[in-house]
């Protein structure tokens, strides 16, 4: 009975994380379309929600990595998974509050690793999986998106450079409908799977599934729904940072950064690398800006984002470890997770209320402001 209560809390918390992942990360997916004027914010977000939902159903490679390749599922308990999720949600809220596009994926993995280490020591970490499937792809993916977007925009300007700006801009805006959709689909395939992986890990820890099991259909469907709802709820502050503060984008840059991002995420998903959509799209945006003019990138903002990326894994791990320690103060029963859940909900409501009082929607760039 106690373990079932904890399992229900873990699943609820994981879906809450998935929801925060939606409003936190997916904002990056639609930011470029919105900032170039290729799509209206409400339409872009609604379409991204639907495509995230669809994307969640088309692969489970990343879920398998999160469930089986990062920490030893044999010694994991539902309470460890719960504390890891709290670490990830707390870090997501902090970065969301300050409008920093950090990685929800690395927050999740960092939180779970931190709580697992606090509970069972460093032996519980599968170093090969953490390094080979998480850390190295985490470094390679944004650099790759940066280079691909940079090369793409250079080539694109050479091809269309002598044509009339109006038709070129319109063409790339139409293209952004497809590239933005593809990026949303890619996001769903990679990000929703992380929640599936964590719920599967908790089900394995609880004995409800065998070791190495794939996520059940209800886990896939509920994760897809949670990320889609989170996406629809929007992430206006981060849209603003990504869409307007890193570079002032034209439609061609928006298209190339989205295309590069989608290509990198889909390729990584195929091989089960749980990378961050945030890292990749920001890498693409910076690449598209830097290729046109190095000074076009607001490197100060980009630097803040890089700092948030670097801090994410250790910070989420530390909060996850603290959450596990705090939960354990109440013994091994369900009291600890219940108390932490109540405290976390209070913190989330408080953050939303404060942010709602201060937040403002993104100004959409005017037609004349979008250049190609």
């Amino acid at each position, binding site marked *: 009975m106690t373990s079932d209560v904890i399992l229900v809390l873990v699943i609820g918390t994981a879906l809450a994380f998935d929801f925060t992942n939606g409003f936190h990360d997916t904002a990056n997916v639609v930011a470029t379309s919105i900032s170039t004027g290729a799509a209206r914010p409400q339409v872009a977000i609604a379409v991204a929600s639907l495509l995230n939902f669809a994307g969640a159903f*088309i*692969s489970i*490679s990343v879920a398998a990595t999160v469930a089986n390749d990062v920490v030893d599922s044999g010694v994991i308990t539902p309470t460890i998974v719960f504390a890891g999720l709290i670490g990830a949600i707390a870090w997501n809220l902090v970065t969301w509050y300050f409008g920093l596009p950090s990685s929800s994926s690395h927050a999740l993995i960092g939180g779970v690793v931190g709580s697992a280490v606090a509970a069972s020591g460093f032996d519980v970490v599968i*170093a*090969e999986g953490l*390094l*080979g*499937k998480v850390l*190295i*792809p985490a470094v*390679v993916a944004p650099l*790759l*998106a940066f*280079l*691909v*977007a940079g*090369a*793409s*925009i250079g*080539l*694109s300007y050479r*091809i*269309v450079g002598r*044509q*009339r700006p109006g*038709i*070129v801009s319109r*063409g*790339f805006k139409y*293209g952004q409908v*497809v590239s933005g959709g*593809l990026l949303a*689909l890619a996001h769903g*395939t990679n990000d929703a799977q992380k929640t599936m992986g964590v719920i599967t890990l908790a089900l394995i820890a609880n004995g409800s599934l065998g070791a190495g099991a794939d996520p059940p259909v209800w886990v896939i469907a509920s994760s897809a729904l949670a990320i889609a709802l989170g996406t629809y709820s929007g992430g206006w502050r981060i849209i603003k940072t990504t869409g307007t503060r890193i570079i002032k984008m034209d439609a*061609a840059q928006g*298209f*190339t950064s989205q*295309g*590069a991002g*989608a*290509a*990198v995420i*889909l*390729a*990584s*998903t*195929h*091989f089960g*690398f749980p990378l961050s959509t945030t890292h990749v799209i920001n890498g693409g945006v910076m690449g598209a800006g830097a290729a046109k003019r190095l000074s076009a990138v607001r490197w100060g903002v980009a630097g803040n984002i890089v700092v948030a990326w670097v801090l994410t894994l250790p910070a989420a791990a530390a909060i996850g470890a603290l959450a596990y320690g705090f939960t354990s103060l109440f013994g091994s029963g369900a009291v600890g997770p219940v108390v932490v859940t109540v405290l976390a909900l209070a913190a989330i409501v408080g953050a939303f209320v404060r942010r709602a009082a201060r937040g403002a929607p993104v100004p959409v760039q005017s037609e004349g402001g979008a250049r190609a």
Partner: protein
Amino acid sequence: MSSMASIVETKELVQTVVFATVAGIGVTAIFSVAIWGAARFTDLSQEERRPAAALAAGVAALALLAVLAAVVGGVIVMTSK
């Protein structure tokens, strides 16, 4: 070095880099050709150079089809495992 190579999934990582590079740059380049074709079609039509305009329209249509095929094919290949 070899133990590092065994930890890092080198083959998968290289394939990811190759696919993302080819798809990202390739699709953008072909789509740019489609836009170039559409822009040339508009200009040449206004100049009443119909054969050249038709050729430009053909280039634009072919490029657009190639982009759609690449996107659909890419999604199918990348998500089938």
